[in-house]
């Protein structure tokens, strides 16, 4: 029987360690084991053979680190090393006369991916793709991705494997005892994401011995529909006289394994410190045995790597990341001002949203590019699961590709074309999907009509292999002022969908009150009615405390919030929030007589905005800039120079001015008044640098002086800098680099910008730079600090 057919039915025995065996045989610490595929192929074949003899049915090739990043350090190419690796395993099978499959082994790339590291998702994908292609060419029977600590990296590897081969794909992650990977990933998220991508086997390897991993594997067995793999270490290694020693015996290793076998473990082998004795004991006892039946708890789940959310109660979807009807948000999108969008997101999370809807649809921007950017930024700082809101299947596909987790897609509807265009991507990435109960003929008037469409969506989903627990139906809120009789039909349909189809439901709520007075009351009442009918995912503004309170109350009254614990907690938190807000406002009153200038010097951020609004009643924006902001900044600058205040205070004041500016800009956008921007400056921290506090300080101060900053962020590709400079006809570009190694990228960026836009002036700064260095890499200016950057800007924009 083929491996794929046996998988999950009969226990399959994996081999044991390769790396630690090689070290025992004299491989030096720090050396690259993969080169032995070529230099000592006989030895590698011998190790494979010993595992075959022990009873292994899958041999892993000695290619754990055979990616282009690591192979740079040796004289062989990825192709040579992998080809030899596969051939060695095949030779062992042939010479032994036993049967076994050969698994192309792919370990972590050795560098951290974005957002923590500088390696991009696409770069990681390409590195894995190269390995997969060679492995396939030389005849590997399956692909085994292992020892991964970052779910994003696992996703890149699995996608590379699945998109470039038809082979079975295994993927195992490495967890610490607390059930988290080094990057914070949870077991449940791993299962959701890997299963969503359609791996053939998933589980755990490395890090600890089987006994320590036992509870974690039990969790996997409880929730994974996919066959479960375990390759544990031979206990925790102990270093004795510089030698790493694994102390547990094969018998000790086998005990927890046999317990896990009873619970349904399907693929079993060993990791660091194990050898043929360990494998032989497992094979003697378990080879060809039937995999034990287990009951899998299946449930609707969305997740980021560290946060997972069961969609079984009521969960609030935040609706604020959406340009519709928001001038400032639209402006931010057009300017590529991601900070604005991120701030909206953070507010929603703080207000208690469980999921964030992300809608960036604006006719005059590249929605796809912006969606990917925003998703990467959001997942870089937040752990909340996301809902991708777009009607463009290409935007959805890209968003799902780069989202590190299991997302919800918002949305499809009953139109065949829409379903056929969007569902394949939903299936491929294991996402959940919202189906709107409308089609080519519009929204049916009756509940029965809408139910019928919901049924069609569920059925079509099933054709694509999307199960009901991944489908969420939106019965569509109608406006009470225009279609009063329709409101009840929505609620009726919602109930039918819940009861008859057994899928989850969602509704955008606030549409109901359009055109009527006292909208909040209608919204809240409608929300309560819908929740009573079984609404799972209200899409609302989480900053609206009344709506949030209604959600929390409904959870109590529907017996979903046991002992009203969450309700009590929410109310307590809110009360203290409101108290502190009131206190802040009171203190503001005392300060209202205080000068805006004093507020800035003291760095009182919240008061700056309010005071600016007050002053705007009497003076115009430019006056405020010249009469209040600039003098205050000058005072702060002087005090800093004199050593009376320090950098954190300087920055604090700068951020306070920024608040004042935000009010002025909003006023400008509202009244269409004269632009107070003194000029646009592009800023970026160059490729390779992942920290940009320094750049952010300079940015804040430049903004204070009225410059509009197009901030490209950190780890920025040369192409991206060139593009932003050209598109915006930029006069001044600011680049920052923190390390001597990345200054080289700064030099390359400067060169590329020079070619594309010779008139653009470039200023540089950063920890390792000096005036000499700046000159050497042919920058126009060296800015030692934020103040010098301002002086340079003044010169360029000729004030």
């Amino acid at each position, binding site marked *: 029987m083929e491996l794929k057919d046996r998988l999950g039915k009969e226990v399959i025995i994996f081999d044991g360690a390769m790396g630690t065996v090689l070290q025992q045989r004299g491989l*030096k*610490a*720090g*050396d690259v084991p993969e080169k032995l595929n070529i230099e000592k192929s006989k030895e590698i074949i011998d190790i494979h053979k010993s595992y075959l003899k022990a009873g292994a049915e899958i041999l892993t090739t000695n290619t754990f680190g055979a990616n282009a*990043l690591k192979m740079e*350090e040796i004289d062989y190419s990825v192709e040579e090393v992998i080809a030899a690796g596969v051939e060695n395993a095949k030779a062992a099978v042939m010479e032994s006369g036993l049967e076994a499959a050969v698994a192309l082994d792919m370990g972590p790339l*050795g*560098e*951290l991916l974005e*957002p*923590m*590291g*500088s*390696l991009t998702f696409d770069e990681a994908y390409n590195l894995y793709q190269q390995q997969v292609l060679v492995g396939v060419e030389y005849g590997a029977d399956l692909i085994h991705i292992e*020892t991964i*600590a970052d779910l994003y990296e696992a996703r890149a590897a699995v996608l590379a494997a699945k998109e470039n081969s038809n082979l079975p794909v295994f993927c195992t992650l*490495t967890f610490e005892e607390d059930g988290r*990977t*080094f*990057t*914070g990933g949870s077991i449940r998220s791993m299962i959701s994401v890997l299963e969503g991508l359609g791996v053939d086997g998933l589980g755990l390897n*490395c890090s600890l011995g089987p006994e320590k991993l036992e509870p974690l594997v039990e969790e996997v067995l409880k929730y994974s529909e996919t066959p479960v793999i375990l390759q544990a270490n031979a206990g925790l290694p102990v*270093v004795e006289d*510089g030698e790493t020693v694994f102390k547990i015996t094969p018998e000790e290793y086998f005990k927890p394994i046999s317990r896990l076998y009873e619970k349904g473990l399907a693929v079993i082998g060993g990791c660091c410190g194990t050898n043929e004795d360990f494998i032989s004991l497992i094979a003697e006892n378990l080879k060809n045995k039937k995999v034990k039946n287990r009951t899998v708890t299946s449930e609707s789940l969305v997740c980021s790597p560290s946060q997972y959310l069961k969609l079984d109660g009521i969960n609030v979807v935040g609706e604020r990341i959406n340009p519709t009807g928001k001038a400032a948000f639209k402006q931010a999108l057009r300017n590529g001002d991601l*900070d604005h969008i*991120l701030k909206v997101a*953070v507010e929603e999370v703080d207000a208690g949203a469980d999921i964030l809807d992300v809608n960036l649809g604006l006719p005059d921007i590249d929605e796809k590019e912006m969606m990917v950017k925003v998703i990467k930024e959001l997942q*870089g*700082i*937040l752990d909340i699961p996301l809902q991708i809101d777009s009607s463009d299947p290409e935007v959805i596909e890209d968003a799902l590709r780069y989202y590190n987790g299991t997302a919800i897609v918002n949305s499809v509807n009953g139109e065949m074309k829409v379903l056929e265009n969007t569902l394949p991507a939903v299936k491929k990435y294991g996402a959940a999907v919202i189906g709107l109960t409308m089609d080519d003929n519009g929204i049916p008037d009756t509940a029965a009509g809408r139910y019928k469409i919901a049924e069609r969506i569920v059925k079509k989903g099933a054709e694509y292999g999307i199960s009901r627990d991944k489908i969420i139906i939106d019965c569509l809120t109608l406006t009470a002022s225009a279609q009063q009789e329709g409101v009840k039909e929505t609620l009726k349909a919602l109930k039918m969908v819940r009861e008859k189809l057994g899928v989850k439901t969602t509704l955008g709520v606030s549409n109901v009150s359009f055109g009527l007075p006292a909208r909040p009351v209608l919204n809240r009442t409608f929300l309560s009615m819908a929740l009573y009918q079984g609404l799972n995912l209200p899409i609302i503004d989480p900053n609206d405390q009344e709506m949030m309170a209604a959600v929390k109350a409904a959870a109590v009254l529907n017996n979903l919030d046991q002992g009203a614990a969450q309700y009590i907690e929410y109310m307590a938190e809110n009360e203290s929030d409101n108290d502190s807000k009131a206190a802040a406002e009171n203190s503001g009153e005392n300060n209202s007589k205080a000068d805006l200038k004093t507020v800035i010097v003291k*760095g009182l*951020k919240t008061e700056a905005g309010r005071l600016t609004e007050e002053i705007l009643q009497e003076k115009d924006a430019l006056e405020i800039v010249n009469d209040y902001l600039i003098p205050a900044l000058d005072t702060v600058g002087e005090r800093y120079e004199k*050593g009376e*205040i*320090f*950098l*954190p*205070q300087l*920055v*604090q004041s700068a*951020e306070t001015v920024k608040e004042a500016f935000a009010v002025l800009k909003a006023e400008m956008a509202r009244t269409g008044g004269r632009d107070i921007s003194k000029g646009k400056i592009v800023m970026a921290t160059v490729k*390779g*640098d*992942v*920290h*940009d*506090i*320094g750049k*952010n*300080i300079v940015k*804040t101060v430049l903004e204070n002086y009225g410059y509009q900053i197009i901030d490209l962020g950190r780890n920025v590709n040369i192409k991206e800098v060139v593009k932003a400079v050209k598109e915006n006809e930029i006069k001044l570009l600011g680049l920052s680099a923190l*390390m001597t*190694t*990345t200054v080289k*990228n700064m030099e390359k960026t400067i060169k590329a910008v020079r070619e594309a836009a010779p008139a653009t002036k470039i200023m540089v700064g*950063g*920890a390792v730079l*000096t005036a000499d260095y700046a000159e050497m890499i042919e920058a126009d200016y060296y800015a*030692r*600090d934020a103040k010098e950057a301002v002086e340079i800007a003044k010169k360029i924009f000729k004030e």
Partner: protein
Amino acid sequence: MEFEIDRNEVLRYLQTAKDLEDENINRLLDESIAEIKKLINFRYLYQKFPIQHTAEGVKIKNTTLTLKGRSIKKHLQKSEEIYLMAATLGAQVDKKISYYEKISVTKSMIFDACATTAIEEGCDQVEAEIKEKVLAAGNEAITFRYSPGYGDLGIDIQKEFLRIIKAPKKIGLTASKYNMLLPTKSVTAIIGVLEEKETAAENLTNQEQEVVNQDDRDLEFEARHCKNCLLYEDCELRRRGIYCGAKG
């Protein structure tokens, strides 16, 4: 491992006075200290290796690595054995710093300084643990921790260094293509075992230590970064030959 996060240290990294009188900043500081303590996922490891002093440099036996340069040679001149150590606060700290960069630059600066304080504190504890082992084995003392990037010891050894002690697999610590340690709040260091006490760093007064370290330091490097610093005179790090990372 318990972390204290010494306020004075944090203020020093922020290049401020010890008695900063600013209510807001002090509140952010307290918040950050409390917050980072919960967020730290401190992981560390170290391993002892015999070394051989060769013309090429300090060869670490049983490994592929030879440490090159004048400064490390000097640092380890009295040692026959060394410890390679690595430690990290984990990825969540980096994520939080990024988070605050979007919310408030002031808070992110302060949080970042707390993180730097924490990793140094963690390393002090690891160093103490190593020292205990060294003393128990009958040796007298250890050298201070010397990291790639100090003096003329290049950071281009980071990847190999980490690979030798299997840091990526064991504690999730990696180096980027540009030899930046990731997660960023991490340290790699070399500690020499000293058989005789009199050369031990901790027995010297600060002034004597200054003299001892004088030769260890890359003076050009210092001139570039430290001379203009407010803290030049009483900088503990500089005395130990360490560059804090701030622009002078």
